């Protein structure tokens, strides 16, 4: 079994600092592998331990921080890592990243499983997994919180609002996992030291035959909660106030 795990360098939001105005200080925020991507690595490494799978990680970008997250993946147990070096990584959208990863998968594959985080910590678009699957032309199971492999079939469970879905699919497939999937292992000093000695393979978008499309975002609007600020004076007529409150609450649902 061969597994590809695309990983993304994202903001470590647990260490995000803010201006007094409430604006996050993005530029100085530390970066790390996204939380659900880490769960994807953990799933890949568990399959490696159980089914002798060969695991590959890939990230798109350039610079020491991208090298570091590949080394972090090595320290968790990944066997081989690629960086597709792209300048101005920040300007690339999921559609282009998806093309790059699909192309790398074709070049270095075939893979039985491509597994990644369902959504990244920063953009949370949840689109990368489906884009990769459509570019390669394999099924996708998105938002998986439990994955196993028996007798040549993957079994994946997704907890949705209307119930729990269990899928059984033969490889090759793409799976995106949530942070509920597992508790990722923490690299030990031994694996950190070992990861330093491992080679990181580097490719460019041109090597993969990808023409970079820059899609500019015109505007990004933050979701703002609009409070209605309706106040009833319960001191005058408590029963009436409760009645009004219940009426408004039920009409809002």
């Amino acid at each position: 079994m061969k597994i590809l795990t695309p990983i993304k360098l994202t903001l470590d939001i647990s260490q995000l600092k803010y201006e007094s105005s409430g604006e996050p200080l993005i530029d100085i925020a530390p970066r790390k592998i996204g939380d659900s991507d880490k769960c994807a690595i953990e799933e890949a490494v568990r399959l490696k331990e159980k089914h002798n799978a060969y695991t590959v990680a890939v990230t798109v970008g350039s610079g020491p921080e991208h090298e570091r997250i590949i080394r972090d993946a090595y320290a968790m147990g990944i066997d081989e890592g690629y960086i597709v070096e792209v300048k101005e990584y920040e300007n690339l959208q999921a559609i282009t990243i998806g093309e790059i990863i699909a192309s790398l998968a074709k070049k270095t594959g075939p893979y039985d499983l491509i597994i990644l985080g369902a959504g990244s910590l920063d953009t949370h678009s949840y689109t990368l997994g489906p884009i990769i699957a459509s570019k390669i032309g394999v099924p996708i199971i998105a938002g998986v919180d439990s994955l196993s492999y028996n007798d040549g079939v993957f079994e994946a469970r997704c907890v949705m609002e209307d119930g729990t879905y269990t899928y059984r699919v033969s490889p090759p497939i793409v799976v995106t996992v949530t942070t509920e999937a597992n508790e990722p292992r923490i690299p030990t000093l031994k694996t950190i030291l070992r990861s330093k000695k491992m080679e990181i393979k580097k490719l460019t978008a041109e090597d993969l035959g990808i023409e970079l499309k820059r899609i500019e975002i015109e505007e990004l609007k933050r979701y703002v909660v609009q409070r209605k600020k309706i106040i009833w004076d319960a001191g005058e007529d408590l029963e009436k106030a409760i009645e009004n409150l219940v009426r408004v609450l039920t009409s809002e649902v």
Partner: protein
Amino acid sequence: MDFEFSEDEVRFRESVQEFCKRYIEPRWVEIDERGRIPLDLIKKMGEQGLFAIPVSEEYGGVGGTITMAAIAAEEIAYHDPSVATAVYTLLNNGWPLLVERYSREDVKKEILPKVAGGEAFYGIASTESHGGSDVAGIKTTAVKKNNVWIVNGEKTYISGIREIQELAEGGGYFLVAKTGKPEYGHRNITAFNLIVRWNGKTRQGWKPTIFEEIGRRGISTGGFILEDFEIDDKYRIGEENKGFYYLMEGFNVARILVAAATIGSGRWALDQAIEWIKNRKLFEGRPLASFQAVSFRLSELYGELEAARLLTYRAAWLADKIYIQKDPKWKEKDLNIPVALCKMKAPEATTKIYEELMKWYGAYAYTKDCNAFRGWLGTFSYTIGAEGAQNIMRIIIARDLIGREYVKG
């Protein structure tokens, strides 16, 4: 000159932080309250490679450095500011290094992998009831008969007494005992691997007792009597009658790690203080932080902690030159002053931070709802003098500055 940690050290620190956030921080109050580090946590720490960090992989260690052990002690103490878990960790990092350095090959292979894996505890048994600072004056004796040493005596204020009895494997101590004529003073001391419980079986002649302590309650402290306790000569550490020197080497390494642990706890206290003074408002809504009497004091305390931290990592850096890189430019005794400086400054800087934090908290600090007292009492153990009394540190430094003839021990 380079004041940056290496990439390996940064990544290791992050991995320890992640481990601590997941497994130690949620339990630290319980650890202090119940007076024990859960055995499952010790096992996890062993699996994570937090013990025997500077010990070679050949003996089951991690193959890291003393700086890395200091990083682990600092971060663990930040997440358990009572420092119990950090002290457990640092004992099982510092003393195993001495075992590797001076013990016989088969003994190293017998003891060290179990300590590294968290199955056995390895600490230090030096202090006796007449006073821990007077090492040369110890009264425990070891007499050699055929190839076996018969040890008699009493050790007190010893860490890990209960843990040795509860861990699956057991454990032991770096023991020092008199092996010749008393008038030879410190040149009359031999060091031994005192294995009191192994394979889950307690050895004959070891009579332990456990004390009730006021702080860093998660790790047990007690004492023991040795009554005709037999130690095979193969467990001797280094040469006969040179134990005092090995002990001082061990203390140097352990003191760096103790300093790092108190700094971790001090950092936690400082973070609590910053959070509190920014949010605590009084006198018509003014935050405490807006009073210069508070903010200036905070700056001073931060300066003291940072100074102690620099002294600590400078000592760790030098210890790595000597013990890990084996740089011939440096000798073991070159560590004496840098170590005494960090051990003198770090616990005292942290004690000052706790005192100020608790004053800024006000009456709240005097209740058990506020956990600051746990860090205060835990780290105060090292201001009193665990792992080397503060005034002994001053003697070591003064002897070097003004000459041995002016400074009597």
